[in-house]
Every structure is written in structure tokens, then in C-alpha cells.
């Protein structure tokens, strides 16, 4: 190698550049598998939307106005699930079986930043999933109105929700061995999907206080409430600033735990 390249490496490289390089790797890998990524992250929410609104709504089991509740919830859920899956499963495999992550662990940055990159990638993937789910969902519920004013809150809710989900994925992916994948879906992901405010507005849970408390513990609830406030403000929702503060707090705490857990998993 030429002297200049040597010099470039020896001089040291900014951690940001290294993290961006790893992020670029994740983008390339995501793009390569774009079809399966889409199937993984947007199919389930859209099917849920179709059954509740397209089928049950037509059969008059569900009130027509329910799509105002469910569509924002489904958008938030697709982002949340996309972020969680982008981190948890690959990490379990890479640490447990393939060891592929080792090359990135040898990059000249503090190891916890390699974990942080996973969360960043997850948040971006959440944004991407929501961006695909929203127009597709609008088609399913046949509602073409889009509140442009709500766009900043929408993006922020999805990003923060995705960030929190990515951090949860980081914790799961570094704590569970690959043999526990089934447990992860049954005991962690499935309950989260039904306690995250997707199918109901949180303030309306006043009649079920214990469930209201339970859902308040799930960060996804605040993402759902944020998206709902952005897209359908007439539906009762938690004050957006409260949702954003709670989400931000969750992100900070979960990310810190995830980075520590990632570092412990990477080093022996």
C-alpha cells in the first residue's frame, strides 16, 4: 500500500466516518435484500389493516371511523417492528453462529459505537418502513387525505420509536442466544405488538386502568400516539410533547443499556 494510505490509517480516522462506513454497509445489505425486508416489515401491518378495516369494516363489525385509529397505529407499528427486527435477529445470529460482526468489532472505534450504529440503522429502517406502509395503508382504507402539517411530528415519532425499538433489539440480540429465537417472538415481540397502542387510542383506555398502565410501559405506545396526533388529531391522543419526551427518555435509557450489553457480548 502506498505511504499515503498508511498515513491515513495511522493518523486515525474520526469515529463518525467509521460509523458511517458501517451504516453504509447496512444500507447496501438492506438494499440487496429489499424484497424480503419489505415482506418482513410491512406485510404484517398491512394485513392487519386489511382485516380490521377492509374486511371487518365492510361486514359492519367495525365502525368505519376505526381506520382513523388503526392506520396511524399500523404505521407506527411497522416502523417499530422493522427497527426491532433489523437489530435483534441479525445480532443473535452474528454473535451466535456466523461471527460476521467480528470484522466490524475490529474497526478502530470504541466497540459500543458499533452497537450504536445498529440502533441508528434501525431508526432509519423504521422511517423507511413507515414511508412504505403509510401510502399502502391509505390505499387499503381508501382515505387519500394526508395532513402535511403533521409531517414533522410523524417523522419524529417514527424515528424515535424506531430508535427505541432498535435499542430494545440491541438488548435482546446481545442477551439471547440464537436458540431462543422462538422465545423472543412469543414472549417479547408478540406482547409488545398488542400493548403498543396500535389498535386503540391510549386515553380511551380509562375504562381499563390496569391495561392502561401496562401499555404506558411500552415505548411503542408513545410512537403510536405521536403518529396518531400527527395524522388524525381529532382522535383522542396523549399530548405530543409528552409522547416525545417519554420516547426520548426511553431512547436514552434503552440505548445506554443496549450499548453496555453489546460491549459485554463483544468482549470476554
Amino acid at each position: 500500500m502506498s505511504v499515503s494510505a498508511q498515513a491515513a490509517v495511522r493518523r486515525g480516522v474520526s469515529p463518525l466516518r467509521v460509523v458511517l462506513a458501517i451504516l453504509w454497509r447496512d444500507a447496501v445489505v438492506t438494499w440487496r435484500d429489499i424484497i424480503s425486508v419489505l415482506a418482513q416489515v410491512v406485510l404484517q401491518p398491512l394485513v392487519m389493516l386489511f382485516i380490521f378495516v377492509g374486511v371487518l369494516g365492510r361486514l359492519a363489525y367495525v365502525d368505519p371511523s376505526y381506520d382513523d385509529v388503526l392506520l396511524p397505529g399500523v404505521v407506527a407499528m411497522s416502523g417499530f417492528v422493522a427497527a426491532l427486527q433489523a437489530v435483534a435477529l441479525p445480532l443473535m445470529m452474528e454473535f451466535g453462529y456466523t461471527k460476521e460482526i467480528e470484522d466490524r468489532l475490529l474497526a478502530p472505534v470504541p466497540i459500543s459505537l458499533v452497537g450504536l450504529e445498529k440502533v441508528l440503522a434501525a431508526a432509519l429502517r423504521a422511517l423507511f418502513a413507515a414511508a412504505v406502509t403509510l401510502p399502502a395503508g391509505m390505499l387499503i382504507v381508501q382515505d387519500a387525505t394526508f395532513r402535511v402539517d403533521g409531517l414533522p411530528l410523524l417523522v419524529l415519532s417514527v424515528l424515535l420509536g424506531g430508535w427505541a425499538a432498535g435499542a430494545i433489539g440491541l438488548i435482546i440480540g446481545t442477551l439471547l442466544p440464537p436458540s431462543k429465537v422462538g422465545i423472543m417472538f412469543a414472549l417479547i415481540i408478540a406482547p409488545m405488538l398488542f400493548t403498543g397502542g396500535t389498535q386503540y387510542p391510549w386515553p380511551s383506555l380509562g375504562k381499563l386502568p390496569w391495561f392502561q398502565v401496562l401499555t404506558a410501559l411500552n415505548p411503542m405506545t408513545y410512537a403510536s400516539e405521536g403518529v396518531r396526533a400527527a395524522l388524525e388529531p381529532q382522535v383522542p391522543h396523549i399530548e405530543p410533547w409528552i409522547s416525545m419526551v417519554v420516547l426520548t427518555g426511553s431512547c436514552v435509557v434503552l440505548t445506554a443499556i443496549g450499548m453496555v450489553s453489546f460491549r459485554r457480548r463483544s468482549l470476554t
Partner: protein
Amino acid sequence: MPGSQTRKAVKVSKVDDSAVAIDALVKRYPGAPANAVDELFLEVRPGEIFGLLGPNGAGKSTTIGILTTRVIPTGGTATVLGVDVVAHPVAARRLLGVVPQVNNLDRSLNAWQNLVFHAAYHGVPRALRKARATELMESFGLTGRGRDSVNTYSGGMAQRLLIARALMHDPRVLFLDEPTTGLDPQARLFVWDRIRELRAAGVTIVLTTHDMDEAADLSDRVGIIDHGKLLALDTVHALTRGLEGKSMLDITIARLPGPAARELPDVLALPDVPALPDLLELPDVPLGLLELPDVLAGVDGVERVERVESAPAVRGGPGGAPPFGPPRPAAAPAGPATGETRFRLYVSRDPAAVLGPVAQLLARRGCPITDVQIGEPSLEDVFIALTGRSLR
């Protein structure tokens, strides 16, 4: 960082000249009954190929793990080119490259991307990483296979790609953990050549292996560790030379003395055999087969003599018989049928120095030598002598 390095330099002056320096290194895994690495001292010189040998579980991989910043030691220090790998892992990772024991290529990327992304993680500028990847793909015989998924790569190709990847950021110290395990002979020789080229280019190489021939062929120096401790550290030559009484001389003689001669040399059959100078003063009488070993054992420097009925010659090169193993049947056994007899002399001195007196003695007794083989102890013998024969 510079501050701590300066302080270290005062304390242990050799650290700054070493490619790798390990000082009283200890690693105990949580819950383990014993230390995996136990007060290990080691120094690797810049530009050398250093072979780290040891039985399974001896602590080799843990040591490599610590040096490559993936294992946090319980105590002691380890530096790579003067950089403390525990205190400054990021700086250390810039200097070192790792070829792991198992294939950990990024299977989501193709071969070319494995190389360029590795360089990108290390901050190599874009144009340079492309040039470097092209160059390394070529020198590792992978040109034209860059776009292939690494899942389609054979074991040998994957290993070559792993080495190429480790070189993408131009490390000054390269750690290879069992680099040729599972490779066919062609691939092994290819990897050996590349490793020697790297040394010629000034890269320090630390490799672990269970292949003693590989270690002996490649390494400038080897360190043998067991139970986390260093047992020996020297050149292969010095280590094998240190194994006293383990050199061998295989002597084949053409014919045995006739039966008539057997009764004559009573004096030679005495248990207390006189030393060579005395022997030489005796009358030149033929020796009997039974007496010959005792006579040979009397030569200065010979510790023990055994008659090898049908053993092949002492190893003259790779593929030969193990010098200290039990004699194996040979295709054309030496023995009464061919009129040849072979004796193996275990010598405590330089075998070449013993050969003269032995040849003289045999010539005087009418036993023409038809074949002589000198067997030096191998690295494997040193390894077994140090670490024992028990299974791990």
C-alpha cells in the same frame, strides 16, 4: 495516550522495540477453575514470524484474543508496537490485522465488498481501497471472483480472502490463528509463500498452529505455551538442539560377521564395555550380531543402541518416519533376507561427531556401512517433551 506510553517506556524499555510484548499476562474466565493465561511473558520482535504453539486449551487463542483487543485480561500488560491493547484498543486496532480461526467473512457481502468495506471501516480513502482490493485479489489468486458471494467460496478461497481482508488496512502486525488448518497442500504452500512475502515487506507475523512442520518451516522463533505459561521461546534450531540425547544416527551394515567369529571376541561381550580408545587397541576381529550393540554403545557420546529389525530410515525429510515413534514396517525391510542390519544409535552429542569413531570401529570389525542417516529431533519432539503425551 502519549503520556502513559512514555511512562511505560521508562519502566520496561524493551516494550517500545517489540512488535508484541506480553508482561505477566493473566486471564481467568468467570467461573473457570484455573487461569487460561497464567503469568505469561512473551516478546515478539519486529519483522519476525513468530509461531505460538501449545496443546488445545493451552491459552493460545486467549492470548491472541487479548492482543487483538477482544479479550480483556485479568492482569498484566500486553502491547502491540508499544500500544497498550487494554488501555488503547482503538489505536491498537489500527496497527494490527487478524485472520481468525473460523471463517467470519461477511456473508451478506460479496468478496470484493468484504475487502473494500473492511478498508472503509479503517478509514482508508475510497480510491486507495479500490486499488488495494484489486491488488490483493490478484496476489491471493482471486481475480475474477470478486462479485461472487462468499458463500460460494471453497474453504481455501475463503481462507485466502480472510487473509487479504486482514491486509486491507495495511497492518504492521498480523495475527493468524491456525491459518492453514483444513487447507489442501497447494493452498497451504500458497499461504506459506504469502506469509513469507509479508515478512519480507516488514510485517510482523504471529501465528498459532498445531502443524509442527508448518511452525518449523515458517517461524523465525517459536514460543511453546501450556496451561497459560510460556515453556520455551527460541528458534526452532535452538529448541531442538536443546533436546539432549535425542539426536539419532541410523547405521546400516551390509553383512554380519560369520558364525565362526562369534565365539572369538569374548572380551567384547563383557558387560563393562571399554571406551573407544581401548577398543581400537584390540585386535581387529569380526563382531557378532549380539555383541555389536554393546560395542557401539561404548562409543563416546552414544547413549543407547537398538537394533531396528525392519524399520525404515530415520526421517530425511517431510513424510519420513517419526524419529521417536515405534518403528514402522518398511516396504523393503532391512534384515537377514537382504543381508543388511540396521542399528539406531541415540546420541547425546552432535551425531556427525559420533559418526567418525563409529564408522572406524565398524570398518575394523569388517562390517561395511551401506547407509547412514542422521536424525535430528523435530519441533514435535520438543513440543511433546515439554507438554507431555496426555490428551487434552
